[in-house]
């Protein structure tokens, strides 16, 4: 379980959010809703360490962390809105890069793990392709596989369905629900209400619940 308490973030004078608190239970999908430009993405970037917050604290599995502590942020995998796959690496190389360089995993193990992830996400045929050869939905799933390869406690998605057609959106929803069954906790930032309804266990209305 992860509890975020009194998180505050501002750029200069502009307050993005103030005293934001939310709880994510294990294996739960939390959907963060709200109009564009309100700071949903900033929140997710703060949780993954891409942005620093002014104040706040985080409790994960009973242990307290400072907001930008990498021991916490490294436990959050992020799926970017525009995927940000590495264009010079094949699908499997994209997924293996972090396990090999950051976790110093043995190559054979990383290959096995990657093959498993690709099979699970229905991407086995695309393993040797480069990102430019994939459809939007496939890129999205490669992004998910790349994040999962680092065994994070939580997977966070930034607007995962923007730019995807209905079929690809359904596939992303299916992947999320499959991961949920396996006990992966997930946070999804979206303004796609039907999608949110389909996947979320609970929703957090940014506009209503956040003081600014």
């Amino acid at each position: 379980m992860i509890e975020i308490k009194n998180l505050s973030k501002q750029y200069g004078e502009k307050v993005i959010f103030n005293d934001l608190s939310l709880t994510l239970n294990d294996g739960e999908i939390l959907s963060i809703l709200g109009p564009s430009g309100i700071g949903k993405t900033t929140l997710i970037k703060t949780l993954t360490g891409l942005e620093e917050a002014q104040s706040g604290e985080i409790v994960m599995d009973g242990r307290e962390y400072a907001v930008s502590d990498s021991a916490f942020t490294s436990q959050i995998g992020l799926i970017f809105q525009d995927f940000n796959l590495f264009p010079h690496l094949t699908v499997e190389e994209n997924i293996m890069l972090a396990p090999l360089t950051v976790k110093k995993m043995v190559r054979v193990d990383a290959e096995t793990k990657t093959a498993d992830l690709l099979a699970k996400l229905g991407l086995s045929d695309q393993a040797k392709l480069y990102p430019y050869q994939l459809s939007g939905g496939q890129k999205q799933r490669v992004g998910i596989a790349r994040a999962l390869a680092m065994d994070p406690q939580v997977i966070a998605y930034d607007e995962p369905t923007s730019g995807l057609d209905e079929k690809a959106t359904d596939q992303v929803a299916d992947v999320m629900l499959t991961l949920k069954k396996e006990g992966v906790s997930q946070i999804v930032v979206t303004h796609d209400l039907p999608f949110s309804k389909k996947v979320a266990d609970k929703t957090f209305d940014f506009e209503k619940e956040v003081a600014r």
Partner: protein
Amino acid sequence: MENMTAFLPGILSGLQMTLGVFFITIIGSVPLGILASLAMKSPYFTIRWLVNGYIWIMRGTPLLLQLIFIYYGLAMVGVPFTRFEAAAFAFIINYAAYLAEIFRGGLQSVPQGQFDAAQVLGLSKTQTFFKVVLPQVVKIVVPSFGNEVVNLVKDTSLIYVIGLGDILRAGSIAAARDVTLVPYLIVGALYLIMTAVVTVLLRASEKRLNVWR
């Protein structure tokens, strides 16, 4: 025909000198250029200011003048460079400045999202640079880099000014002695062969890099 055999040894040793300056410049200026391009993005004003000043001087004055200055000028103030060392030094710092500008452009065209993705996956700054950024920069800069390398092949002929014997100088000596243009024709053909080899190699590397986009 006997004249040909008379000046061939001279041209061959000139070719050795030309290739020597060429390769030492490539080997020295590429890493220096990368360092300078990174320094241009430094958070410290002084470092950016120094690097920009260096690049301004190197690109703003003729390479010929830099050669003269480094060999004769530094000798006067007690820095003893051999002719070859002076040539290598001048070419390396001059070409590094041009390459730094090219690499800077390449670095700028790698989207912020790539840095973000690497950071979220836990890659260190060094790992991000070598595994994510550099391969993308290489692809972007190959065409402009190739242009500089072709220029370098021809610029090596400037070393005559500090008394080094390259192929052009060997050709001039032979042409003056035998009152014929044939040595110049041969020298011209050698430059064409060298630039053709460079062009073919660079095209091949561009093609290899085109497997991804």
